[in-house]
C-alpha cells in the first residue's frame, strides 16, 4: 500500500477522550451532552462548525412530540406504521416518543430561551433551528466537551482486539492531521445527499456509514434513499410540508393529477417531461401568517425572489435528499444504539430510521426526535462502555481503505472530482433514482462497481483533497448499497418505486440488510417488523 496521503505519518494533533463523537449536528450534540452528563471526557469533531452545520441547523427542526396519552400515542404510531409501509417496530417508536418527551423539557432547565407564542408559552414542538443548535453547542461546551470544528474524520481506529478505539482526520483550516484515542466512538455524521446542494446537506456525504462498514457494521433500509425534495427552481430551499397546500401545474397551466402525500411519482414523472409549477393556492388565507412564521427560511428565499407563493405560481424542481429524508443507514442492533461492533455506536441520520418511520420520510419531526433519542442512548452507552476500558496505550490501526490507502495498482490515480462526477451521474437523476427499474439499477451498479475498483486502486489526495477523496469513496459506497438494496426489493413500497414492479408485495414486508465493500450483499432482516395494535395487516 502507498501512503502518499500523509495519513500514516504521525498526526500533528493527538488527543484522548473517553468518548469521541464524530459529527456536530442534532444527534451529535445530544450524544456529547449525554456522555458528558455521565461524567466522562468527551471530544466532538465536526466536519463543519458545530452549531451551524448539518441539516437540522439549516432546515428547521420540528420534533415528534406526543403526550403520553394512550389514544394520542396509538394514533401517532399507527399513522407512521401505515405511512411507512408496515415495516416499522412499535417498541422503538414508543421509546423514541418517551425519550423525546423526557428530554426536550430539560432544555428549559438548562436555560434555553424557547421561542414564545402569542400567549407567551414556550414553543416546544417547533425548534428555532439556529438558536437550538447554538444552544446545544454551548451546553456541550459548558459540560466540558472539547469541540474541534472544520475537522472531518477520515477513518476509525481499532486496537489489537479489533475494538473501535478512536478516529483520525484532518483539520481543514489548520491543514494538519488529528488523532483521537477514545474508549468508545459515536458516529453521528448524518445521512447522505450525494452533494446535491440540498439545504445544508453537502456535509452529509455518507462518511460515517463507510467508517462503520469498514469495521464490519451492517446497514439497513438503503433502498429507501431516493427521496427528492421540492425546491423553488434553481434554489436550495427544500421545505416540503407546505406543498400539501399546492396545486401543481405544467407550463400550459394544466393540473398535474395525484395527491402529493399519496405518491410523488406523478410529479416526478411530469418533471421529466417539462417544467413543473406550484402555488400554495389551497392554503386558507387565515393561515398565511402562521405559515410564514413557522418557516422563516422558506419565506426569506421567496421574498428574495420576490415571489408570493400563495398568490403566484412558481417553477419548482426536485433535488435529491438521499438518506437525509430517506431512511436507510447503519443498523442499530440494540436499544443502546450499538452498531454490533465493540466500541462503536450510531446516532441520528447515519443510522437507519426504518423502525420509526419505515420507508416513508422521517423529515418534519420523527427524524429530530430520533436524533434526540438515539443521541441520548448512544452517548450514554458509549460512556458506560468507555468506563469499562483500560486506558488504551497500544498501537492503533486505521480501518480506512478506499480513498485513503490506494492499492496503487492503477496506472494513474483517480481524481476525487472525477469520481464524484461519475457517482452523481448515477445517483442524482430522477429518472434513475426515483423511478427505478431492474435494468437501470443493474446498469448503474456496473458503472459504480467499476468505479469502486478504480477507486480502490488509485483514489486519494493530500490535505483538503484527501477529505474529498474519502467523501467520494463514501458516496460511492452509499450508492452501491442503495442500488443493490433497491435491486433486491422487487416491489414498490413507499419511497422505493420500481416501475417494473409497481405493486406492493406482501411477501416482502420486511426490512433488508446490506453491507460489504468490495462485494456488496443483501439479506432480509430476520428481525421482523412489530406493528402491534389493530394495524398489523400491511
Amino acid at each position: 500500500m502507498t501512503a502518499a496521503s500523509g495519513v500514516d505519518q504521525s498526526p500533528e494533533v493527538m488527543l484522548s477522550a473517553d468518548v469521541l463523537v464524530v459529527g456536530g449536528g442534532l444527534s451529535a450534540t445530544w450524544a456529547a451532552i449525554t456522555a458528558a452528563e455521565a461524567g466522562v471526557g468527551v471530544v466532538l469533531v465536526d466536519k463543519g462548525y458545530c452549531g451551524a452545520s448539518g441539516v437540522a441547523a439549516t432546515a428547521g427542526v420540528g420534533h415528534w412530540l406526543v403526550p403520553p396519552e394512550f389514544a394520542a400515542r396509538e394514533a401517532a404510531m399507527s399513522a407512521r406504521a401505515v405511512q411507512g409501509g408496515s415495516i416499522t417496530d412499535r417498541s422503538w417508536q414508543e421509546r423514541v416518543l418517551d425519550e423525546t418527551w423526557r428530554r426536550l423539557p430539560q432544555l428549559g432547565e438548562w436555560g434555553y430561551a424557547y421561542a414564545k407564542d402569542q400567549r407567551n408559552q414556550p414553543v416546544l414542538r417547533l425548534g428555532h433551528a439556529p438558536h437550538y443548535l447554538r444552544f446545544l453547542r454551548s451546553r456541550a461546551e459548558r459540560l466540558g466537551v472539547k469541540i474541534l470544528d472544520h475537522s472531518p474524520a477520515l477513518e476509525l481506529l481499532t486496537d489489537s482486539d479489533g475494538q473501535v478505539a478512536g478516529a483520525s482526520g484532518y483539520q481543514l483550516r489548520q491543514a494538519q492531521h488529528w488523532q483521537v484515542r477514545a474508549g468508545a466512538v459515536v458516529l453521528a455524521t448524518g445521512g447522505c445527499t450525494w452533494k446535491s446542494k440540498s439545504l445544508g446537506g453537502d456535509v452529509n456525504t455518507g462518511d460515517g456509514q463507510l467508517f462503520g462498514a469498514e469495521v464490519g457494521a451492517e446497514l439497513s433500509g438503503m433502498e429507501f434513499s431516493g427521496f427528492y425534495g421540492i425546491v423553488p427552481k434553481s434554489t436550495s430551499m427544500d421545505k416540503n410540508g407546505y406543498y400539501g397546500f399546492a396545486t401543481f401545474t405544467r407550463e400550459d397551466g394544466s393540473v398535474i393529477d395525484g395527491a402529493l402525500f399519496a405518491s410523488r411519482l406523478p410529479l416526478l414523472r411530469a418533471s421529466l417531461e417539462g417544467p413543473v409549477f406550484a402555488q400554495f393556492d389551497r392554503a386558507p388565507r387565515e393561515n398565511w401568517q402562521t405559515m410564514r412564521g413557522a418557516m422563516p427560511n422558506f419565506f426569506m428565499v421567496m421574498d428574495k425572489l420576490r415571489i408570493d407563493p400563495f398568490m403566484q405560481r412558481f417553477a419548482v424542481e426536485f433535488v435529491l435528499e438521499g438518506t437525509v429524508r430517506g431512511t436507510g443507514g447503519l443498523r442499530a442492533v440494540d436499544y443502546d444504539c450499538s452498531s454490533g461492533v465493540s466500541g462503536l455506536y450510531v446516532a441520528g441520520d447515519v443510522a437507519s430510521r426504518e423502525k420509526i418511520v419505515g420507508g416513508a420520510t422521517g423529515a418534519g419531526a420523527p427524524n429530530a426526535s430520533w436524533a434526540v433519542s438515539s443521541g441520548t442512548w448512544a452517548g450514554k452507552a458509549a460512556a458506560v462502555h468507555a468506563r469499562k476500558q483500560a486506558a488504551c496505550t497500544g498501537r492503533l490501526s486505521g480501518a480506512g481503505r478506499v480513498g485513503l490507502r490506494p492499492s496503487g495498482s492503477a496506472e494513474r490515480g483517480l481524481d476525487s472530482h472525477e469520481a464524484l462526477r461519475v457517482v452523481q451521474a448515477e445517483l442524482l437523476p430522477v429518472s434513475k433514482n426515483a423511478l427505478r427499474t431492474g435494468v437501470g439499477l443493474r446498469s448503474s451498479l456496473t458503472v459504480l462497481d467499476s468505479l469502486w475498483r478504480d477507486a480502490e486502486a488509485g483514489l486519494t489526495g493530500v490535505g483538503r483533497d484527501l477529505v474529498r477523496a474519502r467523501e467520494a469513496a463514501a458516496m460511492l459506497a452509499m450508492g452501491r448499497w442503495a442500488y443493490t438494496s433497491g435491486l433486491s426489493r422487487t416491489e414498490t413500497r413507499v419511497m422505493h418505486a420500481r416501475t417494473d414492479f409497481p405493486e406492493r408485495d406482501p411477501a416482502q414486508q420486511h426490512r433488508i440488510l446490506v453491507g460489504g465493500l468490495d462485494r456488496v450483499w443483501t439479506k432480509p432482516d430476520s428481525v421482523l417488523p412489530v406493528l402491534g395494535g389493530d394495524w398489523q395487516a400491511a
Partner: protein
Amino acid sequence: MIEIVSAERCTGCNICVKICPTNVFDEGLEDVPVIARHDDCQTCFQCEAYCPADALFVAPMRTPAEPGSEWRDEAALKARNQLGLYRMRVGLNKKNVPELPSDDEFFAVMQAIPRR
C-alpha cells in the same frame, strides 16, 4: 450562493470564516473575508444568519451568479434591505425576535392540508 461580502459593512470579525459549514471563506488580507471556495457553498444561509454586521448576502440560487447579475448588485440589494435578511427573520439580531406560532396553532395549520 454567497455572493456579497460588503466591505463597507464588514467589521472583520471573521465569524463567517469560523462558522461556514463548508469552509467557503478565508480570512482576507485587509480584514474583509474572501470567498475562497465559491463552488463549495451549499446555500444554507448560515453565514447570513450569523453575521453581526449584516454584511453578507446569500443569493437564493444554488449555482454561482454571473458577473453583473442582480444577485451581485450590492447597492440595489442594500436599498431593498436584503443584506442580513435571514438574520432578521430568524431573530439572531436580538432587536427583532420573531414570534413563532404555538405548537397547537402550527399543528392546526398542518392538519388543514387537503388530502384530496
